[in-house]
């Protein structure tokens, strides 16, 4: 059985990691636990990337920290299965932001982390994807630094990697994509201040995060700057989760097709030659919406 194979791994893994003298997050936390009773010793904060959504794409370190969580502050993009791993005894704070609605301000998130840490709690700040990519890591750390709180970061699988793997397409390719570029597209179309001429180069892969609202602008701008109408574009909704859907289309028809198929956030947009092969793997996926 798989789990019986994997189970001894835990001990094996932990002793190996300890032997290496890395994974300092864990040992620090252990130390912190002993002194935690003393409310004047501030707790530490772990910024944790929870990956693209699927529970088994969580890292070993992230899981270990989540299992022992005391206070958890989490976002909209952290998967349900992952939240289910948080112990019942932990305090949970949802600070998610739906597009256009900042339910909890960045400043408030910073305050919350600091308040909880100052009470002596170990605080887990769970984020979807990777903390270094479109996750406002610097701002949150700034708040912790200002308050003199110790922190650690656990990187996670970013949505682009997760969705590409799940769609069976590479992000770089020796012949057709020498580089890959991740772009945020949360703002309204008028505010997309990107260098569209540079983005419209054919020899690269573009990945737009949070871009569904700006799909019309993306499709129009890329064409206006020279990419052909039939240039391939792939939308991946709920990437890596059971509910994942792919839509392989072209720049000129993607807006209409995405509306027809009722694509919703979270959806990732991948533009470039590499997406062409998604059509071939599409049949391997549970639920796929085909472009005509």
């Amino acid at each position, binding site marked *: 059985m798989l789990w019986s194979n994997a189970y001894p791994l835990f001990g094996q893994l932990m002793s190996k990691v300890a032997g290496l003298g890395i994974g300092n997050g864990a040992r620090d936390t252990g130390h912190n636990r002993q002194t935690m009773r003393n409310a004047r010793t501030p707790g530490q904060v772990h910024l944790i990337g929870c990956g693209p959504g699927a*529970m088994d794409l969580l890292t070993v*370190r992230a899981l270990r920290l989540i299992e022992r969580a005391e206070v958890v502050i989490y976002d909209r993009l952290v998967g349900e299965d992952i939240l289910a791993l948080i112990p019942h005894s932990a305090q949970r704070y949802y600070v998610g932001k739906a597009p256009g609605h900042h339910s909890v301000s960045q400043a408030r998130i910073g305050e919350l982390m600091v308040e909880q840490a100052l009470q002596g709690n170990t605080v887990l700040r769970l984020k979807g994807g990777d903390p270094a*990519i*479109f996750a406002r890591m610097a701002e949150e750390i700034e708040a912790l630094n200002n308050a003199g709180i110790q922190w650690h*970061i656990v990187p996670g699988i970013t949505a682009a*990697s997760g969705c590409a*793997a799940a769609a069976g397409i590479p992000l770089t*390719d020796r012949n057709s994509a020498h580089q890959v570029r991740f772009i945020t597209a949360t703002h309204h179309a008028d505010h997309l201040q990107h260098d569209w001429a540079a983005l419209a180069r054919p020899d690269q892969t573009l990945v737009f995060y949070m871009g569904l609202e700006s799909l019309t602008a993306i499709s129009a701008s890329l064409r206006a700057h020279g990419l052909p109408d039939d240039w391939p574009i792939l939308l991946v909704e709920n990437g890596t989760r059971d509910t994942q859907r792919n839509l392989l289309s072209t720049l000129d028809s993607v807006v209409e097709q995405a509306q027809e198929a009722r694509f919703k956030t979270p959806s990732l947009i991948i533009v470039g030659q590499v997406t062409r092969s998604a059509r071939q793997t599409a049949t391997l996926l549970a639920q796929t919406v085909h472009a005509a």
Partner: protein
Amino acid sequence: MDYLPLFFDLKSRVALLIGGGDVALRKARLLVRAGACVRVVSREVHAELDELVELHQGQVIIGEYHPALMDEVALVVAATDDQALNERVHYDALARSLPVNVVDNPSLCTFVFPAIVDRSPIVIGISSGGQSPVLARLLRAKLETLIPSGYSRLGTLVGGFRDRVKARFSNVNERRKFWEHVLQGEIAERVFSGRDEEAAEMLEQALSFESGEAVGEVYLVGAGPGDPELLTFKALRLMQQADVVIYDRLVSPQVLDLCRRDADLIYVGKERDNHSVPQHGINALLVAHARQGRRVVRLKGGDPFIFGRGGEEIEELRAAGIPFQVVPGITAASACSTYAGIPLTHREYAQSVKFVTGQLKNRTSDLNFSELVHPNQTIVFYMGLHTLDHLCRGLIEHGKPESTPVAIVSQGTSPQQRVLTGTLSDIVALQQVAQLPAPAVVIVGEVVELQSRLSWFGKAEGSQA
């Protein structure tokens, strides 16, 4: 063994629940999940409990407990904070030989509720016999992660084939071998990746073929930056199932150690400029091993689809008709930047990030410097250490300010990690002195300036640190 674990069929049977608060609600949820008709008795009943019981054909009695309520009952649970009442319930149940549980009072229980991992039809109960519920819960959390959620669907799928397999293989050993093959092989993996229909088809095929020696499968697995704790659970699971592991230079020995002990390990190198096995050779190797019916893990440093040439490998597998799966890994840019304290994007300084290979292969014209100098972006060069001089000069010549911050992160996430920061104009000289070894990523952009404030792991050095 203080308690014998049993699984109780409660479908359409009456479970008596005494108490109407939060604790009673939790127990009621469990009981209705198992199909029980819950009879709740309490002076006051939680609104949600009332609704739940109503919805599941149960019965809510507002009032006092009395022993006659135990008539036709299969099992009794007391969840009240009235100690005397709990004791009465306990003795009444004993007198009628009914199993009874008094919440949080092991001495009054004839059965206990385990911590449950529910992958119905697979159900796992864990008990510490009341010695340490926390330990049981921790174990549960571990199992929750180790057992793919697809086990539930897998259980249902194979359940539907049970009679036919029994008919097909009269020999018990043959039957066991068949099921082991199905439950540990690519059919199970199909279910775990949501491809149930294909799994069912394959199961049909396996049943109709005399010899079950099917084509193997290839898993392209991202091993991340090197720290074994940054492996994903999916990667670990597949590494533990491998018959063959084909790996290259960037996979750390600590990660390699976690592969299945009996697996054949094949090194295919890829030192820069010294491909010990050329790409087409690797492709052929994957196909050949899979054709022998083996489960092949192609283990790559970082993410298989970011400068990992995974695209070429899956193309070959597709052409050969070999099933494959791709497991993403943490790419070097993510890991090295977080461990160096450099965010790749920032609201003010960088609204996009670009990954570029610094391995130029005499095709320098491929690098469009004029576009790389655009502000408000972060550029990460993979394998850029040996072309550093060329990259910096190119950027400056095309108008990127000489003062643009640059960081080299060498052996990122390992205990030997080193970070060197400087600017486009002085990083080459600094590196000549520091001599940081490969593998390394080079990060160019304003975000590097944040490093001095955000550094937390290992040592940092350089002109700005």
